[in-house]
């Protein structure tokens, strides 16, 4: 009897016992703040109110009608699509180049990583100077080579500012994409290309029928990670424009930060955070759905 019980504990309870510390840590670090945010989002709570009142979905009703929220949401989606698209294309091109044999390849591979290694706050400041209207390098180069006839007000023009921020993010994150795709490329067996060469397949054929299908799982995972990251962009925008001009670079993270910490509207700020979470969740669900397919086929 005792032996049975011991056997039972060893077989079924013991693994959970081992897992308990990690589960506890995850619960404290991830789950508690998350549930707390959701709970707060159901309240009217702010620093200047003595007590918080439960208002159900009141904050979310306000959010649906809030132009500021939808503006930030649209900007965030735009920023995410543009940056992930260019990061993928450029990252793939760089990975393909680095996959070839040439002298100093190791050095180049390391050098490519530099933008990724610089803290974003620092690189955003640098790019802020480059895109400075009066003294910036961008205006100097583009006007002195006569590509542009007059200085551009990069960060002061509502049509340009978000694109400048996107350029900085693309510059910073392409290396990450390149590195992951390079790892993917290196898993493709050389025989496939040899066979293709014998069959007389063109470059395009090899790209479409060998390379892309083979790295599709890696590509999709990398794009998923980048999408989640780009959707939560904060530092580039916060440092370069602070959301201006005319809210044209306000994204969900910066808006949430302003509402929560500057305006100390804890309830509504939490509702914004929850809305952002739901958006990200839907995005990743879409990706995973797509990915599951590819993974099973691959």
């Amino acid at each position, binding site marked *: 009897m005792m032996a049975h019980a011991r056997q039972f504990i060893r077989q079924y309870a013991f693994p959970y016992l081992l897992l308990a510390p990690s589960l506890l840590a995850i619960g404290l670090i991830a789950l508690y703040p998350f549930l707390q945010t959701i709970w707060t989002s159901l309240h009217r709570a702010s620093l200047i109110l003595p007590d918080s009142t439960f208002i159900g979905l009141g904050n979310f009703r306000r959010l649906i009608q809030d132009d500021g929220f939808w503006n930030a949401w649209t900007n965030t989606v735009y920023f995410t699509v543009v940056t992930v698209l260019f990061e993928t294309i450029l990252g793939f091109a760089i990975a393909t180049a680095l996959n070839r044999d040439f002298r100093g390849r190791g050095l180049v591979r390391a050098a490519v990583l530099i933008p990724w290694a610089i803290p*974003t706050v620092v690189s955003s400041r640098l790019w802020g100077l480059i895109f400075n209207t009066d003294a910036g390098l961008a205006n100097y180069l583009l006007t002195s080579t006569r590509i542009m006839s007059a200085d551009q007000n990069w*960060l002061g023009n*509502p049509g340009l500012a978000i694109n400048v921020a996107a350029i900085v993010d693309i510059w910073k994150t392409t290396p990450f994409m390149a590195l992951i795709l390079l790892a993917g490329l290196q898993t493709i067996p050389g025989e496939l290309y040899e066979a293709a060469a014998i069959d007389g397949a063109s470059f395009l054929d090899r790209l479409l029928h060998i390379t892309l299908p083979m790295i599709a799982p890696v590509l999709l995972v990398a794009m998923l990670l980048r999408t989640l990251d780009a959707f939560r962009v*904060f530092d580039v925008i916060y440092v370069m424009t602070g959301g201006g001009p*005319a809210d*044209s670079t306000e994204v969900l*993270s910066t808006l949430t930060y302003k509402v929560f910490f500057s305006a*100390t509207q804890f309830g509504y700020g*939490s509702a914004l*955070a929850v809305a952002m979470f739901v958006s990200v969740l839907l995005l990743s669900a879409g990706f995973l759905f797509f990915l599951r397919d590819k993974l099973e086929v691959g």
Partner: protein
Amino acid sequence: MSNRNLPSRSALSRRTALKAGGAGIASILLSRQAPAVIAQDQVEISFAGIRIFGDDPMPALLAQFEEENSNITVRYIELPTPNNSTEIHQYLVTSLNAQNGEPDVFTQDIIWIAEFGAAGLSAPLEQFGVGETETAEYFPGLIEACTYQDQLVGWPWFVDAGFLYYRSDLLDAHGLDAPATWDDLIGAATEVMAAEENPELLGFLWQARQAEVLVCDWVEFLGSAGGRVLTEGEVTVNSEAAVSALQLMQDLIYTHQITPEAVLTYDEEPSRLPFTAGNGVFLRNWSYVYAIAQNPDESRVVDQIGYQPLPMFADGENAATLGGYQFGLNATSAHPEEAFQLLQFLSGPEAQKTLALQVGVAPTRQAVYEDAELGEQNPFMVGLRDVFTGAIPRPVHPAYPQISLAIQSAISGALTNQTPPQEALDSLAEEITFIIG
């Protein structure tokens, strides 16, 4: 540092969570501090003060205070410089909201006093016996800013205000007077820009980055037309005066073209740089610019600048936005009497004079301006007395931070030609009404 996790981390900062966390931190601190609380009523209080530009004068002042009050030890928590006001605000919200008595005394931007007062985070100071005799020593505008619902929830420290710097050499060379009205300024800037052979020369520099400073500039343009954001609790931000003020700001950029479009990205320092490099005729800024402009290492316009109140509309008045950091006393301080002693000392005539002489922050006590030594060493500051006396506070309301974000967004929208002034101000008025309603 990565700020990307902020929204999820923010959940931790909720009031209740903070209380729990605060209690935990408090117990850790208490156990660590235990030896510091020695016999014979020795107490330790904490002071969270902003870092002032230049050599930090606070440690010496605090040491002097400890010497004069041998039963009190002060732990100095150094906050960032005032241009990091968002971070300072976040620190104060988080630590005061933990309600564990730390920091006992803190420095706060003038615009947060009503907010912290309404939240019950700062203690009313009347309980320590201060009244009209004491407040009469300070500029009335500062006392007004430190008062929330008839209670003194802040205590004046130093004052600042926006005013106009100009290139006296350029104006003299073209036989121009310093401008009294906006029309004078536009005329003078246009004339000097046309006559000088300097393609880099900019007429009038101010700040229009979508940030707090845009609100400061807006309150000044508005005030110079005789308008206010709030008048006796009513929203007047879309008055006729307000529309002409916003129209003027737009016109300076696009019609008169004496202000570069780049001003839309400028906060204080980017607007200051062209001026001290000799490429600006007029500049709206705070008092810190003067010392830089007179320093040959950093400036090409040493002894070539003048200063005066900002111009006004023909039927308006001179206006300056009131700024500066003031003291607050934590409502949950364990040693309120000692904390108040420290606050009184740091705001006292001697400390204010020391700070004015050493690092050039302007006193809030009127009598200090009559000090002979200060008059001799820093005539510039004494000359600003009138600007400080008449300076207008930004809307005094507990929800000010929210009002400020709305103003930034609306004014930036108009200045980038996204919305016509009247329309921008009408919807701003609607939004402010919602916020304070």
